[in-house]
């Protein structure tokens, strides 16, 4: 038997990993049965992982950031958790200010004190070869956030998880977010890093009880040599609502995968993303919407703007199970290529087993419209400004889905900065 990457690390590291010993062993076995998903797996066709599967990385060394380093990334009045190289920095976090009805804790703390999170954690225990890196995360998870919002509690302040990567190595992060019946909460994630080659492997689990609502915003601005694998698992009970917007700018190879189980009737899931690619970046957005019950709504919009030789992928699969009548599932994927050498791959996929459903999908790939550019130039805008305004206009539809004006502005600033750095000529 060939030894899978990370086997030696797991044996060596596990005594020091916080709690969940049995769960970790089981998860490692599931991972080891398949190893890293290769490009032969349809869902991983474009995500070339050889640099992180070939040489097993060590956990990134402990490091620190200063308040000045993080200032630009903060959301005003948020409950903020700062993680550096995958470990929570208590001094920079303010979770002790969480209001009544909300508990926000470090995953390492929760596991170390022996709290049993397994009812939640095992729900990401998929057996498919495609789930191998989620299993590896369960085996090696080091820290993350555990957020629990009690029934009926409306959390005003956004909860902001900020991750900074400062060295090479791997960061195995696990976040668990549980929203009780009728609870509402905003959860934002931000990923930032330096020039080092590192790997962030993050698994987010969202559990929404009846009538719960989560606004989720994700800002992936890793360093350009980084590998970022984000796996989101979302479970919606009846009348729950999950609204997610992800902006992806960083990483050499970056993936944001979201699997949603619409388990309760009348639940609504909105997934949106913007990828901005340059250099040789690969940015992969993968979704799986599983409508298991009637009257569900899912609405996806993913957009990419691609320069140089960058490549964006959208793979969106919608399953409508036999029982899931009156499902309304929409998916749209639109791409703009700023350079001829850039590439967009689009693969919306439908598996429909119910007859009374509405499913729509559309995909486009094109350049910026020459008519539009000429019209703008005819009003005095230089080509670079005209292109930037058109790109901002193109992604606006996605940003407008973000409920929080502060988060929307933060994302807009990121996108503006990216555009500013482009030649766009």
């Amino acid at each position: 038997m060939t030894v899978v990457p990370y086997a030696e690390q797991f044996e060596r590291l596990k005594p020091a990993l916080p709690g969940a010993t049995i769960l970790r062993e089981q998860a490692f076995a599931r991972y080891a049965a398949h190893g890293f998903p290769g490009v032969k797996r349809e869902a991983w066709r474009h995500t070339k992982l050889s640099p992180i599967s070939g040489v097993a990385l060590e956990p990134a060394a402990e490091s620190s950031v200063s308040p000045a380093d993080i200032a630009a990334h903060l959301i005003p009045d948020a409950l903020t958790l700062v993680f550096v190289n995958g470990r929570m920095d208590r001094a920079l976090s303010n979770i002790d200010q969480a209001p009544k009805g909300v508990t926000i804790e470090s995953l390492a703390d929760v596991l170390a004190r022996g709290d049993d999170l397994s009812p939640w954690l095992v729900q990401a225990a998929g057996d498919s070869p495609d789930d191998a890196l989620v299993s590896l995360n369960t085996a090696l998870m080091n820290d993350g956030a555990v957020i629990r919002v009690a029934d009926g509690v409306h959390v005003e302040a956004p909860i902001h998880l900020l991750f900074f990567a400062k060295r090479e190595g791997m960061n195995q992060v696990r976040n668990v977010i549980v929203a009780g019946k009728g609870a509402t909460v905003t959860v934002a994630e931000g990923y930032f890093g330096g020039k080092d080659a590192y790997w962030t492997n993050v698994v987010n689990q969202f559990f929404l009880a009846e009538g719960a609502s989560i606004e989720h915003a994700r800002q992936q601005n890793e360093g350009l040599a980084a590998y970022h694998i984000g796996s989101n698992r979302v479970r919606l009970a009846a009348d729950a609502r999950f609204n997610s917007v992800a902006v992806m700018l960083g990483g050499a190879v970056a993936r944001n995968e979201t699997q949603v189980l619409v388990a309760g009737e009348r639940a609504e899931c909105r997934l949106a993303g913007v990828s901005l690619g340059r250099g040789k970046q690969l940015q992969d957005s993968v979704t799986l919407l599983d409508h298991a019950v009637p009257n569900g709504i899912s609405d996806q919009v993913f957009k990419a703007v691609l320069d140089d030789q960058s490549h964006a992928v959208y793979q969106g699969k919608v399953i409508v199970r036999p029982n899931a009548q009156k499902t309304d599932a929409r998916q749209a994927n639109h791409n703009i290529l700023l350079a001829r050498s850039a590439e967009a791959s689009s693969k919306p996929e439908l598996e429909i087993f119910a007859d009374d459903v509405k499913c729509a999908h559309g995909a486009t790939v094109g350049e910026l419209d020459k008519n539009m550019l000429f019209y703008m130039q005819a009003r005095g805008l230089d080509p670079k400004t005209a292109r930037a305004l058109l790109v901002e206009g193109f992604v606006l539809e996605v940003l407008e889905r973000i409920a929080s004006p502060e988060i929307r502005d933060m994302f807009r600033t990121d996108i503006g900065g990216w555009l500013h750095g482009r030649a766009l000529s």
Partner: protein
Amino acid sequence: MLEIKNLHAAVDGKEILKGIDLTVKAGEVHAIMGPNGSGKSTLAYVLAGRAGYEVTEGSVSYDGKDLLAMSADERARDGVFLGFQYPVELPGVNGMTFLRTAANAVRRHRGLPELDGIDFLKLLRQKASLLEMDDSLLKRAVNVGFSGGEKKRNEIAQMAVLDPHLMVLDETDSGLDIDALKIVSKGINALRGPDKATVLVTHYQRLLSYVEPDVVHILARGRIVASGGKELALELERDGYINYVPEAA
């Protein structure tokens, strides 16, 4: 102000303009009329500097400068304004942001200080009210979901804000009802001045009774085949182009 000499232009290798001579002096309004497909919009695009409209012969001077050597955006900043026959929709591009960016590009070029949001809004309100335009239109994405008439009014509102020297208006009157036509004409007239020039491309004499031209030209098959006073427009209204384009009968 504008001097076009023996202008030949081709689109996709096909010659559309076949030797145009036209001189417009400061303070004048010239109307260009002609049947569909005669090259009116092509002429307008060539003046505005659209890519793909290749000048194969001739010259255009604007305020003594070689207009053809300038890029489309340089021309616009230097005071050339094209009112589009079909104004373009810009999805997601906010009208205020767009026009303020444009106005400030023009102002920088003229050595004027840039306008901040508040001063710009004042200017815009003033110009929009002249055109009896609802503010809310300007806050939306440029031209998106506007009616044909709203788009044309928006062109003139943009023109009023940018305050150009040479106005080239391509069928700004088509698609307007009589009330809108009067308002748009008022907008155009307000921008006329001794140091400005206007080229009105139109099909109809109607506009010319509100914006009185000094000279009317007939463009047919890429050439100016007749020029005269405003009575020429009345003649066309009565007889059509039959005397100028025999097969148009």
